[in-house]
C-alpha cells in the first residue's frame, strides 16, 4: 500500500495541514493576545516535530519492516525545512522587524538563538541537495554523509528549545528523548556493523535506494 501514488499526496496534504490551521486561526483572530509569540511558537513546534519525523523514518523502516517508508522521507524533511523557514522569517520579520543590530545583540545575549540559527542553517544545504539530480551529482555516499547534518540539526533544535523555556522543561525533554533514541539507534547499528562478529554487511544504497522511484 505504501507504494501507491496517492499515499504521497496524503502525506503532502498532511504536511500542509498545520499551516492551513494557522491561517484559519489567524482569520478567526484566534492567535491569542500575543499573535507574534503564538506564530513563533507554533511554527517552531512543527519544525521540531518534522525533524523528529524525518529522523524516525530510517529506524521505523527497519523496525517495522516497512522499507517503502523511504518514499516519504524527503518530503517530511522538506516540511521540516519549510516550517523552520517560517519560524525564522517570523523571528527576523515580525519579532525583530529586520533590525540587524538587535538580532546580533540577540545572538550574543541569547545562546538559544544561536542554537536555533545553527539548526536552521544546517538544513539549508540539505534542502538544496534534496533532488535526485544532486544525489547523482554528489554520489550516494557523499550525499548521505552530507545529509547526516540532520543529526546536528536535531540536537541543536532540542538545545534551542531547552534553552528558551523558563522552567517547564517537559516538552524539550520529550523531544530530546525522541532525538536521543533515534540517534542511539543509528549508533547501535553502526557499532554492530563495525564489530568483528557482524554477519552481513548491508549495502549502503538501501537506505536511500527508495528515492529511485522519483524521476
Amino acid at each position: 500500500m505504501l507504494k501507491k501514488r496517492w499515499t504521497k499526496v496524503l502525506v503532502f496534504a498532511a504536511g500542509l495541514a498545520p499551516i492551513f490551521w494557522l491561517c484559519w486561526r489567524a482569520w478567526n483572530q484566534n492567535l491569542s493576545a500575543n499573535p507574534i509569540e503564538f506564530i513563533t511558537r507554533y511554527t517552531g513546534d512543527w519544525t521540531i516535530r518534522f525533524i523528529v519525523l524525518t529522523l524516525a523514518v530510517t529506524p521505523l523502516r527497519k523496525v517495522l519492516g516497512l522499507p517503502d517508508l523511504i518514499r516519504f522521507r524527503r518530503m517530511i524533511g522538506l516540511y521540516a525545512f519549510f516550517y523552520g523557514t517560517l519560524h525564522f522569517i517570523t523571528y527576523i520579520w515580525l519579532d525583530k522587524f529586520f533590525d540587524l543590530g538587535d538580532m546580533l545583540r540577540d545572538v550574543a545575549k541569547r545562546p538559544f538563538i544561536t542554537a536555533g540559527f545553527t539548526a536552521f542553517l544546517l538544513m539549508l544545504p540539505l534542502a538544496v541537495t534534496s533532488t535526485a539530480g544532486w544525489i547523482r551529482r554528489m554520489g550516494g555516499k557523499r550525499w548521505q554523509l552530507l545529509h547526516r547534518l540532520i543529526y546536528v540539526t536535531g540536537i541543536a533544535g532540542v538545545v534551542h528549545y531547552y534553552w528558551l523555556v523558563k522552567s517547564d522543561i517537559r516538552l524539550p525533554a520529550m523531544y530530546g528523548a525522541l532525538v536521543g533514541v533515534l540517534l542511539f539507534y543509528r549508533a547501535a547499528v553502526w557499532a554492530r556493523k563495525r564489530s568483528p562478529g557482524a554477519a552481513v554487511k548491508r549495502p549502503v544504497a538501501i537506505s536511500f535506494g527508495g528515492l529511485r522511484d522519483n524521476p
Partner: protein
Amino acid sequence: MLIRKPADIRYSEITPKRIYMNRRNFLAGVPAAFLGARELLSPSAQALAGTKLPNVQKSKYTVDEKQNSYKDVSTYNNYYEFGTDKSQPSENAQNFKTAPWAVSVEGLCNKPRKFTMEEILSLAPLEERVYRHRCVEAWSIVVPWVGYSLSALLNKVEPTSKAKYVAFETFFDRRQMPHAAGLEFPYVEGLRLDEAMHPLTLLCTGMFGETLPPQDGAPVRMILPWKYGFKSVKSIVKIRLVGSQPPTSWNLTNPPEYGFYSNVNPRVDHPRWSQGSERRLGEFRKRATLMFNGYGDQVASLYNGMDLKKNY
C-alpha cells in the same frame, strides 16, 4: 453586604472597541459577519465569572495609556498552577473555588488574624488604578485593576519593629490544580516591608470594575507595577511579617535568573534575553522598557545606594 445587584453596564457588555471600529468590515460579507458575531458573544460569556464591584473610586495612581482588552487580560496568563501555557489558565481555572476565602495575616505583628474576603473588600475604599504591567518575558499590558494599597491591610495588624519583610503564600490544591507544573508549590513571594507599605503596592480584588476571574488570581492578589509580573502573586492565602528575607518561588527555581527584587530594569538583562524592550500586547513593534516600568519617580528612592545589577 457589598456585592449587591449588578448595576449599570459592565465592561463586558460593551461592544469591544475593535469590533466597533471595524463595523464596516463587520458588514463586509457573510463570513466576516459570522466571525464578528462570535467575537461579540465570547467576551461577555467569559466575563460572567466577574461581579461588578460597587463604589469604585478613581485613583491618582493611574496611567493615561490605552488599556488592553478584558479578553487579552483574561486569556493570556502566566499562572503555572493551572498549566504553563498562556492559554491554559483561562481554560483550567474556570471551576476554581474562590468562596469562601480568607487571608491569614500573621507573624511579627501585634494583632495577627484572619480576614474573610468580605472583610478585605470593605476594609478600605476600592480604587480603580490603571497600571502598566511588565512580564519578565518581555511583554506588557495596561490594566484597570481594582483594590487599595496593601498598607491599609498591614496597618490593621500593626507590624512590630522587628518586621522587616513581608512573605506571601498563595493557594495550592493539587486536586483543583492538576495541571500545575514547572515550579514548587505553593508559590511564595516576598517584599521588603518598605516596598510592601508603598502606596503603589496594590492589594487587588478586581479588574475592569469587576471581581477578578480565576485565571487572573481571584479572589485577591498583589499588583506591583514596578516589578516583573511574577512578583505580583495570585490567590493569596497567607501574608506573614518576618524578620529576614523570605524565599521566593522563581528565585528558588533558578537563582541566577530571578532575584528577590526583580524590579523592571532595562539595563539589567535576563541572562538569556534582553530586557531593553518589550511588546505591549496589541502593538506590532516593540517599545523601549522604562526603568522601574515608568514608576521611577515614585519608587526609585526605595533603592537609594543599592547596586541594582547585584540586587536584580
